[in-house]
């Protein structure tokens, strides 16, 4: 981290997006995380995704729990409202916020302690309700702020910095999300921006509950030999099943890798996800197959990344409730109060 604030001015020729914003307009306070922290790469990816999608920053609400990961909303999208809630409870706060105003983009940021331990229940229920959100777990398998205890996503048999072996089974949030009915499920790696940025963009475009589990090595407490969440280990065991382009009606984004077999998925708002298959057996439209594929590869010690499942026809909580299109926080007495005459009739019925 640095204590030097970034200067506000920038070069006049910085590239602008469709609404005239530069990348700098999506930045925020300087990070206070350790130099080289994977979480900072994720913040940068969020900034890049928001810039590329030409999102108005104030139309985003960023909500988090407690922990290193949950501090990060202070470090991106400074013009957005942020909410650093209590430990493990981001999903409920986000759900409530979403109910109040269906028109904003909800970005939930959490960590593995926050989502897989103390907040495992809320993680599950927000996904199964289909809350329209992007739920990013910055997953490093360790409690950073309290200095290196194992978290519930730490693999069985992995070694802590102090040398202790983890004897508990790991919780795989991606498998859980698939089972719970999340309609967009992805896993990525903080060190692979080319993979992560399109996934975040696609998740924002998706209507419904979108989970991105981002393996984000903790360089202070979980980057040693024997850890299965270290930079080296993740790089060596990363099994990417596809590469993704997100098309939102503007000029196609050029891809810098070799073309493979391309599958196009059209989302509810007309935007297109172009998936270049890296693994021919993998079909991200098949929830059951995705679950099997994940289990089989996990057994071989491989970390499957990419867009693992997407349901382009998904609906969200507001769809289930059939709420009015006007955000609930904009309704007033006229729409909400049945009035004095109705009350007289109610009184008459109670005699």
């Amino acid at each position, binding site marked *: 981290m640095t204590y030097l604030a970034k200067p506000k001015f920038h070069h006049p020729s910085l590239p602008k997006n469709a609404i005239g914003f530069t990348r700098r307009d999506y930045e925020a306070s300087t990070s206070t995380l350790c130099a080289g922290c994977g979480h900072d790469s994720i913040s940068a990816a969020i900034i890049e995704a928001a810039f590329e999608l030409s999102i*108005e*920053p*104030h139309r985003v*609400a960023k*909500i988090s729990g407690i922990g290193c990961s949950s501090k990060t*909303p*202070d470090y991106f999208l*400074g*013009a*957005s*409202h*942020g*909410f*650093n*809630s*209590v430990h493990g*409870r981001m*999903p*409920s*706060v*986000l*759900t*409530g*916020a*979403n*109910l*109040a*105003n269906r*028109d*904003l983009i909800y970005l939930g940021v959490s960590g593995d302690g926050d989502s897989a331990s103390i907040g495992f*229940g*809320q993680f*599950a*229920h927000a996904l199964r*309700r289909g809350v329209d959100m992007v739920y990013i777990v910055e997953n490093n398998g360790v409690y950073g702020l309290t200095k290196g205890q194992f978290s519930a996503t730490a693999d069985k048999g992995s070694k802590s910095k102090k040398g202790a072996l983890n004897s508990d089974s790991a919780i795989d949030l991606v498998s859980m999300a698939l089972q719970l009915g999340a309609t967009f499920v992805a896993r990525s790696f903080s060190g692979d921006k080319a993979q992560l940025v399109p996934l975040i963009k696609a998740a924002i475009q998706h209507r419904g509950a979108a989970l991105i589990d981002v393996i984000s090595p903790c360089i202070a407490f979980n980057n040693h030999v024997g850890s299965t969440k270290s930079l080296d280990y993740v790089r060596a065991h990363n099994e990417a099943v596809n590469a993704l382009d997100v098309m939102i009606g503007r000029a196609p984004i050029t891809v810098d890798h070799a073309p493979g077999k391309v599958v196009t998925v059209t989302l509810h708002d007309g935007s297109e996800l172009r998936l270049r298959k890296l693994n021919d057996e993998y079909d991200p439209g098949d929830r059951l197959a995705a679950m099997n594929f994940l289990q089989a590869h996990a057994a071989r010690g491989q970390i499957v990344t990419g867009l693992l499942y997407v349901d382009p026809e998904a609906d969200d909580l*507001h769809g289930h*409730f*059939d*709420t*009015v*299109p006007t955000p*609930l*926080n*904009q*309704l*007033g*007495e006229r*729409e*909400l*109060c*049945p*009035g*004095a005459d*109705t*009350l*007289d009739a*109610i*009184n008459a019925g*109670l*005699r």
Partner: protein
Amino acid sequence: MPLTAVNDFVIRFANVNGSGSASANEMFARAIMRMGIPMSPRNVFPSNIQGLPTWYEIRVTEAGHLGARGGTDIMVAMNPQTFNADVAAIEPDGYLVYDSTRAMPPGRMRTDINVIGIPLTRICNTEYTDPRQRQLFKNIICIGALSALLDMDLAELEKLVGEQYKGKEKLIGPNVHALQLGRAYAAANFKCPLGLRLKRTDKVGDRILLEGNAAAALGAVYGGATVCAWYPITPSSSLAESFTRFCAKYRHAPETGQARYAIIQAEDEIASIGMVIGAAWNGARAFTATSGPGISLMQEFFGFAYFAEIPAVVFDVQRAGPSTGMPTRTQQCDLINCAYASHGDTKHILLLPEDAAEAFEFGASAFDYADRLQTPVFVMLDLDIGMNHRLCRPLQWDKARRYDRGKVLSAEDLDRVKDFGRYTDVDGDAIPFRTYPGTHATRGSFFTRGTSHDARAKYSEVGAVYVEGMQRLLRKQETAKGILPKPLRDDAGKPTRFGVIYYGSTAPAMNEAAGILAGRGHSLDLMRVRAFPFHQDVASFIADHDFVFVVEQNRDAQLRTLIVNELDIDPVRLVPILHYDGTSITARFISGAIADRLDALKVTPLRKAMS
């Protein structure tokens, strides 16, 4: 000599829960009300679905005493399991009504009561073959018999049957027939009416009969709540369910049928309050309904909302604690847990409604208070108010009333405002301005956090900054005192050294007790406290008296503790009168307890003794 009284007695039905007795009993109570006679029904029920004892008590009271009286004048003993205890509970010279089809359970029958045996099962079995019909109509036949014994107007019962089965007309005839069967049997076999009887009058006036939970839910509808997140817990569930019912009726867009509300049955109470806080942060009026155990679970979020200054409305329908306690019994035992909820130094707003009418009023205005003060507001109901039908004044809504959304800056405001700081005390009332997310493209965003923050919502661990914030939160309580419902004072009319402070569901019993005590020559000034933090009038009231009785329904004198703590009152001057066995507090108990203390306090003042 059998008890005799007109429109002044207590009748109690002892039943087995799940047997269909509840609707018949309720119909009986309503018929009394329709005869213009004030009455006060109470459910006494177990935490169980089917098979355990349940009682339904109606206090018939032309004088309009709506608190529980205590004692039973007529016991309708339909539950063999509790028969002996029920018989033992009858007042001397009272009446026992029972099903005489089978022999009475073993045990010596009392000789000081009047026994009325009606062969309900036999009448039923002769008339009906279907087992379910036999069960249901038995209750109706019993009501019919009572209508003759107590001189109830049969037409009122028939009318109620018609209303209950509106749309299922073919059920009306058989029910009316069952009523008549019972009525005919009683008329043919007993001298009707009994000494205890009903007589049509006009004392109900324009009052309505309503449960506090339903009233509070309707208050939330009128108050503009759009988000409800809750987790089922007795005795609060019917509040959220009533809100659901009212919303289905009054909250759909007429053109499209779409919902102008969202209700989530959350995974637990922590999620419920998290959703409420998230929604309120984002500008919707949101609430949860819960009871003591839920309040315990929500603690961390209460502290968050207090410190980050986010509105929230919490309906706490109190039940007897601690732990699971007595889930279906009433108490006022969550005051301290709510007033100081969460770790660290906190203080929260409590509203203390006395009945359904106030539950409606406070249920609506709680949202104004929460928005105005940007903090959680607890509406402290209890099982006695929440789950019992109670006569109360008609609900009122001023056509000109507008929601007070508090200090919220619009996009236009933000264009005008030079320097927005989320926690800056601009007006000197300790209430800062807030913005909803998404309001303005470049201005007004801030970062909400439970960590210490400065006036601009930036993280700060500077001691002076923290202290300044905490002091402002204290000053905000001062602002609150001027906004919240004021305590109501009712003086005895002649000078007295003694006062009484009470609140919530104690009100009807306390009012009655004051009358009883006045009749015995004890004058008492009364003050009903309606909110926390306490208005200055509470301190003045105590200052005006040597001793003040604080009547409440918990073991540890929680309101008294709050008064001592917040107003720096010498505890000796606050005499606790405590009723906490889970039953509704009665005027008999209060008047007895206060009379005892008054005798003990009747010491000659030192000045007089010396002169």
